[in-house]
C-alpha cells in the first residue's frame, strides 16, 4: 500500500528482465536482470556501468524501444503491460533519447527541418510546429543556426540540435545515451550545460548514461550497473564512497576522490568521497601545513 505522501514516480521499473534473441538459445545471457528503479519527475539521474553492463538496454526498456520479457514498467504509476500499440505510442512520447553518434540521428538537410521531423510525425499542426521549433532552438541556444545545414556544425552543436529535436516533441524525460562520448571538451560542456539547464529551468527529467564520472557528480542520483544488474544506487556522495567496488566493475571515481583514495592507500587518512576540487585542495593543503609544523 503506497503511502499518501509519497509521489508517484514518472518512471518505475519493477524487476525488468531482457535477453536479446539469439540463434542458439542455450547461451543466451540476459542483458538486463531483475532491475528495479524509480525516477521521479524533475530528477537528474546518472547511469554508470562498463561497456556491455546493460545500461543502454535498460535505457531502451525505459523508453519502450524494447519490451521486457518479464517485469513491469510503470509510467505515472500506469503499467505498460497489456497495453495496445496505440497506448504504447502515446506513452513513448513522454521519453526522448539522444544517442552517442551525432551523425546518426540527424535526418534533414536544414537544422529547423530536422527539429520539425519529430512533431511532424506526431501530426502536430504546422503553426504549432513552427512555435515548437523556435522554442526548442532557443532552449539549446542554437536559434542563429536554424537555416544551417547540420553537416556544417560541430559535434557539440549537432548534439544540441538532436536535443532540440527531442524537445520539440515535448517529452517529460530525456535519456542521454553517452551523448557526449564523441565530443571535444567544450562540446561536452555545451551538451551537459544544456541538459542541466533544461532540468533546472523546465523541470525536464534527465537520465544521463555516461562514462565520465565528472558528469555523474552533477546528478541527483547515481545508479551503477554490472552484468545486467543494478549494484549501487544513491546520491553521488553515497555511490562514489564505494570506490573499491567501482574499480572492480571497470569504473572509477572522480579525480578528486581517486587522488585522495590513492593517498589513503599510501598512509593518508582523508575522508572520502570528495567530489569538489576546492575541498580536495583544502584537505591536502591543511595536511601540508600540519606536516610542515610538525616536521
Amino acid at each position, binding site marked *: 500500500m503506497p503511502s499518501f505522501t509519497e509521489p508517484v514516480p514518472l518512471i518505475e521499473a519493477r524487476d525488468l528482465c531482457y535477453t536479446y534473441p539469439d540463434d542458439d538459445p542455450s547461451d543466451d545471457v540476459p542483458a538486463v536482470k531483475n532491475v528495479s528503479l524509480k525516477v521521479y519527475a524533475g530528477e537528474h539521474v546518472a547511469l554508470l556501468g562498463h561497456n556491455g553492463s546493460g545500461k543502454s538496454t535498460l535505457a531502451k526498456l525505459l523508453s519502450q524501444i524494447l519490451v521486457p520479457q518479464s517485469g513491469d514498467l510503470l509510467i505515472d504509476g500506469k503499467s505498460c503491460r497489456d497495453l495496445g500499440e496505440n497506448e504504447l505510442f502515446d506513452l513513448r512520447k513522454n521519453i526522448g533519447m539522444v544517442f552517442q553518434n551525432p551523425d546518426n540521428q540527424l535526418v534533414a538537410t536544414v537544422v529547423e527541418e530536422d527539429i520539425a521531423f519529430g512533431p511532424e510525425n506526431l501530426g502536430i499542426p504546422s503553426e504549432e510546429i513552427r512555435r515548437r521549433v523556435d522554442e526548442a532552438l532557443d532552449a539549446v541556444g542554437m536559434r542563429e543556426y536554424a537555416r544551417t545545414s547540420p553537416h556544417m556544425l560541430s559535434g557539440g552543436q549537432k548534439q544540441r540540435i538532436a536535443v532540440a529535436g527531442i524537445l520539440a516533441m515535448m517529452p517529460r524525460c530525456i535519456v542521454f545515451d553517452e551523448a557526449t562520448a564523441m*565530443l571535444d571538451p*567544450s562540446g561536452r560542456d555545451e551538451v551537459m550545460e544544456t541538459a542541466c539547464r533544461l532540468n533546472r529551468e523546465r523541470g525536464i527529467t534527465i537520465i544521463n548514461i555516461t562514462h565520465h564520472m565528472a558528469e555523474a557528480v552533477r546528478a541527483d542520483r547515481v545508479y551503477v550497473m554490472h552484468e545486467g544488474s543494478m549494484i549501487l544506487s544513491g546520491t553521488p556522495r553515497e555511490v562514489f564512497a564505494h570506490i573499491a567496488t567501482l574499480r572492480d566493475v571497470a569504473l572509477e571515481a572522480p579525480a578528486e576522490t581517486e587522488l585522495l583514495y590513492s593517498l589513503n592507500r599510501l598512509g593518508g587518512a582523508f575522508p572520502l568521497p570528495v567530489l569538489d576540487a576546492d575541498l580536495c585542495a583544502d584537505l591536502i593543503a591543511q595536511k601540508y601545513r600540519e606536516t610542515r609544523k610538525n616536521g
Partner: protein
Amino acid sequence: MAKIELQNVCYTYGPGTPYAKIALKDVSLSVEAGKITGIIGHTGSGKSTLVRMLNGLLAPDSGRVLLDGVDINADKKALASVRCRVGLVMQYPEYQLFDETVEKDIAFGPRNMGLSSEDIAARVREAAGFTGLSEEILSKSPFDLSGGQKRRVAIAGILAMKPEVLVLDEPAAGLDPKGRREILGGLLRYRDTTGAAVVIVSHNMEDMASYADSIVVLRQAQTAFEGTPAEVFARRGELEENGLRVPDAVRIADKLRERGVPVPEEICTVEAEAAYLAELLSLK
C-alpha cells in the same frame, strides 16, 4: 631522422566552390619512431584531415608528406606499400568489421599483404595479444561481440599488418575507464615491442597526459603549439580558448599551488600527483 614528417602541408576541401573549407594551412609536424605523439584540437581544427595525410588517403594541395625521408605522394603506385607501413585506425573502426570470424577479420590485412598462412596465423595471435582478445573469441563472429570487444578486433586488424607508423583517431572514445586503459596499454606494448611511431588523436586529456610523449595542438587548421604533456598543459589559457581543457590532475594541482602547496608543473596525472604528494606529506 623523423619517421614520418609533414612539411608545410596545405589542404582545402571543395576548392573553388562556395563551400571551400581550409582544413590544413601550412602544417609541419614530425613524428619520431618509438614515440607516442598525441594530437589534440577543437572539433574542426583539422585533426582528421591531418590523420588522412599520414597514409596518403588525402594528398596535400601543397607541401610534402615524408616517410623515412621519401615523399609518399611522389609515386602513386607505391601508395599501397605506404598503407601497409602506415596503419590507420579511423574513428569507430568497429563499423568496418565484416568477416565471418574474428580470426578471419584480423587476418584480412596480412592476407592481402601476401604472407604465408603460418605467418598470418602468428600475426593474428600476436595482434590479439596486444589488444587483449582471448583465444576463444577468435572463432566467434565479430557481430556477436560487445562494442568494446569489436573495437579491439578492429585495432588488432591493423596491428596484424605490423605497421611502422600506427595512427589512431580516438581509439578509446566511448569505452569505460578500464577498457580505455587496456586499449591504450596495448598500444604502448605494441610500441615497446616493435619500436613503431604511434600517433593518437584524442579529446581525452587524461589519456594524453598518461600516454603521450609529446602533444601537438591544432587550432583552425594550423599547429598552435607543441611540447611534452607538461609543457602543453602548462598553457591553460590557450587550451581553454581552443575549447580544450587541462587534465583533472593539473586542475587539482593549480588549486593546490593557489593554497601554497608546491606542486611541480611536470605533474599531469593523478598517479604522479598521488606519488608526489605522499612524499611531500610524509605519509607512510
